[in-house]
């Protein structure tokens, strides 16, 4: 039951129990008020208003009691809601910090973002404005049915039987409508995708004179979309008609039962009328449920999003007591590491090598060889499936995640900047560093000339995802950040052509200036970088094809040498 799923998210057990108890009390009072109508109307219609006065007073008392109960329920619901409101998003953040990055597909990323922006509010509103009326509408009819058993048991039986039927009809209606919506969305997305492709391929299609809908892939997709839309009738029709029909049928059944009880002489006319009116009241909550069901769907969506994050796997610390780096051990060691993003397709199929302290290792190889994945494993963005990654003598899994990160400097290809000032973005590397060091790091990364050029200098806001800066400039920010952090192991993914030659030399010099203290693992594209490395690891198809000093490998005349020659040729290529 979704109601319980939502409530389970709330931490405060006592509040939840209180809320549930109050819900039942309020529903009981409401059922009581409805049942009071039987004697009330019976008296009113057979003996006149005067005779009903006592019952009217009782009804008034019950309605008032219902208000009081409902207020208490609302207060209890809001209490839970506010707890979710203030706590939910923080819990999501906590979880996100510890989920392996491989878990984030594009879809999950979007879900996580939505969970972060609105889950608290939506859950809060959900409990307060949705769960309360829905639960009330679910509990009340059976209580009325049970009460009717005492007044006129056949009617009570019919009512108790009608409740599940109506719920079933409502459920089926909802399913049908949802199925129709899903089918429509899928067909529409497919057609949309085709139209967007068409927009992208305009030049070629125009050359072929194939831009219309007749006989083209787009045309076919649109036709499919049209027939899919027509097929929806099959779902929509029952979806939109079924529940209404069921409600009316149930009502008719109840009324017929009441009338039959009258005809057989068990009840008087006034009583039958009273029961007919109660029957109408009995059916009412179902209409409320039907009205709220789209909102319930939305809440279900929220719940799923939150759950998918909160239930996602996390990177656990293996050791009971997290380890500290061993100053004597090599900076990095990979032992037969295997890893794949999907089962059965390993990107890394048994990689082993060692990076000594203070040395530079260049990872080289054709695209798709698993170079970037390898760096991600070291930073523990993913977990190796087999084998182990040792940083400063210990498996990364045995570190406290924060401690591991503390020892790594990272400059990856997709440079990410926050929409804050340039200064803040560099400062991330070491929030406690004095201004002076921030400036030093910036000038070593050649960021200073960028800052000079910008009207707001250090205070320039970099825009969403750093959009205000060029690719090369973003790269420099990220390098400055890593330089400021000054960690003992630097992971560097050389971005393609992001820096021009002159700046590149300066930046390389800056990165190298700490060599001896710092070990560097670089996914290298530039020949100059490769040439300067102490060790080259040539990856191919997820395996280390060759490893050794660059000159040595070149002399060996193997895969690396062939690669090198190709790159040299490419660098000297001229068009025409």
């Amino acid at each position, binding site marked *: 039951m979704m109601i319980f799923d939502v409530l389970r998210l709330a931490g405060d057990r006592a509040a939840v129990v209180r809320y549930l108890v109050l819900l039942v009390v309020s529903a009981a009072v409401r059922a009581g008020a409805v049942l009071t109508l039987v004697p009330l109307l019976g008296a009113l219609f057979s003996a006149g208003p005067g005779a009903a006065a006592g019952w009217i007073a009782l009804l008034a008392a019950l309605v008032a009691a219902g208000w009081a109960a409902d207020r208490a329920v609302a207060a209890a619901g809001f209490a839970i809601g506010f707890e979710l409101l203030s706590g939910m998003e923080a819990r999501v953040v906590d979880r996100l910090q510890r989920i392996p990055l491989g878990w*984030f597909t594009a879809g999950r990323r979007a879900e996580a973002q939505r969970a972060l922006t609105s889950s608290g509010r939506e859950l809060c509103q959900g409990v307060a404005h949705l769960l309360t009326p829905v639960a009330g509408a679910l509990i009340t009819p059976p209580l009325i049915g049970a009460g009717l058993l005492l007044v006129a048991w056949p009617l009570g039986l019919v009512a108790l039987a009608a409740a599940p039927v109506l719920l079933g009809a409502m459920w089926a209606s909802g399913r049908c409508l949802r199925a129709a919506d899903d089918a429509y969305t899928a067909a529409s997305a497919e057609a949309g995708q085709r139209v967007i492709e068409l927009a992208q391929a305009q030049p070629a299609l125009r050359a072929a004179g194939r831009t219309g809908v007749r006989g083209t892939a787009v045309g076919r997709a649109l036709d499919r979309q049209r027939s899919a839309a027509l097929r929806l009738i099959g779902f929509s029709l029952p979806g939109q008609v079924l529940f209404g029909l069921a409600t009316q049928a149930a009502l008719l059944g109840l009324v017929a039962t009441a009338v039959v009880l009258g005809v057989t002489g068990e009840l008087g006319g006034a009583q039958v009328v009273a029961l007919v009116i109660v029957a109408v009241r009995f059916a009412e909550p179902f209409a409320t449920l039907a009205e709220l069901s789209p909102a319930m769907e939305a809440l279900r969506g929220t719940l799923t999003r939150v759950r998918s994050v909160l239930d996602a796997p996390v990177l656990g610390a293996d050791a009971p007591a997290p380890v500290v780096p061993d100053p004597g051990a090599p900076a990095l060691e990979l032992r037969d590491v295997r890893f794949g993003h999907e089962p059965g397709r390993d990107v890394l199929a048994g990689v082993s090598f060692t990076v000594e302290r203070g040395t530079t290792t260049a990872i080289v190889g054709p695209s798709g060889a698993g170079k970037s994945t390898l760096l991600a494993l070291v930073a523990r963005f993913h977990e190796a499936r087999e084998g182990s990654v040792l940083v400063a003598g210990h498996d990364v899994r045995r570190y406290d995640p924060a401690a591991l990160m503390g020892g790594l400097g990272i400059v990856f290809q997709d440079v990410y900047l926050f929409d804050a000032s340039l200064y803040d973005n560099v400062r991330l590397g070491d929030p406690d560093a004095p201004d002076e060091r921030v400036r030093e790091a910036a000038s070593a990364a050649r960021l200073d000339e960028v800052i000079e050029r910008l009207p707001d200098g250090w205070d320039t806001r970099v825009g969403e995802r750093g959009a205000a800066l060029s690719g090369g400039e973003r790269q420099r920010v990220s390098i400055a950040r890593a330089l400021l952090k000054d960690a003992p192991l630097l992971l560097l993914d050389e971005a*393609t052509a992001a820096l021009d030659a002159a700046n590149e030399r300066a930046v390389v010099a800056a990165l190298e200036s700490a060599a001896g203290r710092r070990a560097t693992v670089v996914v290298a594209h530039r020949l100059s970088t490769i040439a300067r490395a102490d060790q080259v690891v040539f990856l191919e198809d997820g395996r280390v094809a060759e490893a050794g000093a660059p000159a040595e490998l070149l002399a060996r005349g193997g895969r690396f040498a062939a690669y090198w020659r190709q790159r040299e040729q490419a660098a000297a290529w001229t068009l*025409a």
Partner: protein
Amino acid sequence: MASRGYAGAMMKTFGAVEHTLTVAAVDDVTPHYRRITFDAPTLFDGQPIEPASWVRLWVPDPRRPGREHQRGYTLLDPDPETRRVSIEFLIHEPAGPASAWAAQAGTGDTVQVTRWASGHFAPPDPAPDGYLLVGDAASLPGINAILAALPDTAEVRVHLERHQEHDTLIPVTPHPRATVTWQPATGDPAALADAIEERDWSNWYAWVTAESAATKHVRARLKDLGFPRGDAKARAYWIRGQAMGTGRDHTPGEETPTTGTTRNHPATPTAAGAPAGASAGRAGSGGSAAASAGWRSRAGARLLAPLRGRLLLAGAFQAVVSLVQLAPYLLLVELCRRLLTAGPQAEGLAGLGVGALALMGGGAALAGLLVAAMHVLDARFGHRVRADVVGKLARLPLGWFTERSSGRVKQAVQDDAESVHYLVTHAVLDVVAALVAPLAVLVYLFTVSPALAAVLLAPLLAYLVMSARMVQASAAELAGFTVWERRVGAEAVSYVDGLTVVRAYDAGPAGGFRALLGERARFLERWQRPLVRRRTAVDLVTRPLTSLLLIVVAGAPMAAGGLLATADLLPFLLLGATFGSQLLAAAFGLGSVRDALAAARRIGLLLVEPELPEPRLPRPLPGAAGRTVRFEGVGFGYDARRPVLSGVDLEFAPGTVTALVGPSGAGKSTLAALLARFHDVDAGRITVDGVDLRELSQAELHRTVGFVFQDVSLLRASVHDNIALARPNASREEVERVARAAHVHDRIARLPDGYDTVLGERARLSGGEAQRLTIARALLADAPVLVLDEATAFADPESEHLVQRAISELVAGRTVVVIAHRLHTITGADAIVVLDGGRVVQRGTHETLLAAPGLYRDLWQAAAAPLETLT
């Protein structure tokens, strides 16, 4: 508290919040125009103060102490820092309470204002072609604020009527493209309207805030000139010879009615003397509503036009269905009546049951029929809209297809099309059903007993008042809420996308983000907590049981007193308890109708984007092998005032490679794009073998000019189809031949189904591989003129040598124009054209250019980086 009459009481009831303003400074701008600056300590806590935001000012009645009048005034120059705001008062003759107050106001005086149900200027989206601002001295404060807010590029006309001699002294905010005209008030209320010239006002936006009668005339005039309703905002700011805040017009600036010929309007005594024929002549010449056909803002209405009639019909049908579905309840009432009068043994009870059953079946059948019909209608309409979009895409200039516009296409064919689908299949029917059933019940109940029915309206009224008050009470938070949502939304995106960085640098924004979330949660809680009780109260008021109690409590005495037959309580008991909540549900349905209309507008706007003109009689190219391309005095800019290229004269000869060189922003890419007619030139012309590009048919143009750019677009189709895109009839041999030439055949052979592999989810190509596939495509298309982005060759460092070889293969024997980023790759080009600031500054070969000082040599030296090699 001063007496504020009925209007004041109403506003209080609906939760108007009052602010006290204290005069801080008084400045007489002209002899009868006074600027008063106020300290407004509380005003800034509410909704933001936009341009031309106005307030209702409570001013004392000079003649009747204790009584206050309400007048509208415009807020100027709000400064949240100092919490000060200004108002400019026209001191007019005859004076009224407001101008009299302003005339004698001094520092320290206070006045109360409320922003309850006030408005402001909201720039329309999409931006109109121009703004027409009409008013007089009293509306000048607002117009000035608008002028200050309008972009410099917008064309603006300001028409002002001068009622007093010194009006023209009042400063008007300068705007580079505004023309301001003052015209004397002649006493003819139509004079202002008549001054608006007859012309094509398509896509203009009008803001009319003049004297009441003048405003009505202008409104009618604009309607004649074709302004759609939403593009002409008119509001009377004062009434000649009448106080603004008394009599019927007790709230300032009631929107004037739009319909009817204003000439005969009784409210304008001066109009009687005006020549009678004038307005008839105007209405005839304006072209009336047909003139608005070309307005962008009508795009949505135009899109939905073919549906309108059917939707109305469907709505009417749904109304009938709703009534039929209601009928069983009436039978139920009848049943109960008979039971009461004749007891359970009454006659015809079974008949009633059968009748009810039949009605139920009939209602369901009709409803089902309607649903099915709407789906058919929707499927056809949806198909037509999408096909229209596809057709449109083929006629748009290629330059239109930027990333942003692709987003618009996506939005139009997916989300927006879905909204319209929802409108057709659900929303209209839902809204009609939600309105018709409760209204019919209400009418019925009124016929049974007006008094008791009126009692039932009480909870509904209470609901309205209470929720209006709640909205008022949270006006400030509502504004804050949108700000928070935007901020948290943006931060959440960057947090999740930047998770690598967040983890690598633990604290930082992660900590910040957490704090932000906490702050937002506290904001929401601070806002919502005090509302909890009210919200609950609103809920309880609309409960069916509450209504039921009301019916019994009010109905029983009525019945006892003989005002009502006891049996007449039946319809109330059976139908009267829920109609209120049903009525409220209709409001939600209207929300999705609004969404759908907005969606239809976006689709419509896409369909009216300016198209690339196709030549009526395309000229064929002379039958030759090589093509010569010539730029003759070409000028071009993305917007009129900032040319990107000017005075470009160039010739590209067959079989030669010409490289375009220059610093970024010099116009290289734009020049190349013009050659493929991504846009049309603003000046000069581009010819292929002497034929203007604009005279070629699209198909011929694209067969002649091909291009390979950095961003590749592969379709989700087989490799074969992707390569054969421009020549769908190509044989497998031909496709294989070009794939080999482009050095991608081996890779294709390794795909699961070879050339029949469908690209997409399962078969992914690396950047360099995709690049080579597009080169193969270009090879097969075999266009004699080729535009190339040299960066393409370096898209994927690991396979750049293969891409390079493919390119070398491609350029052989064509007229090639290459956008060069790395100079050393084009040293061998037949010609190098150096661009700077949109002009050709140098041309020659690598050797000649290097020999002389100039931009090329500077660029070369800056880039010269020795190739570092091993050994």
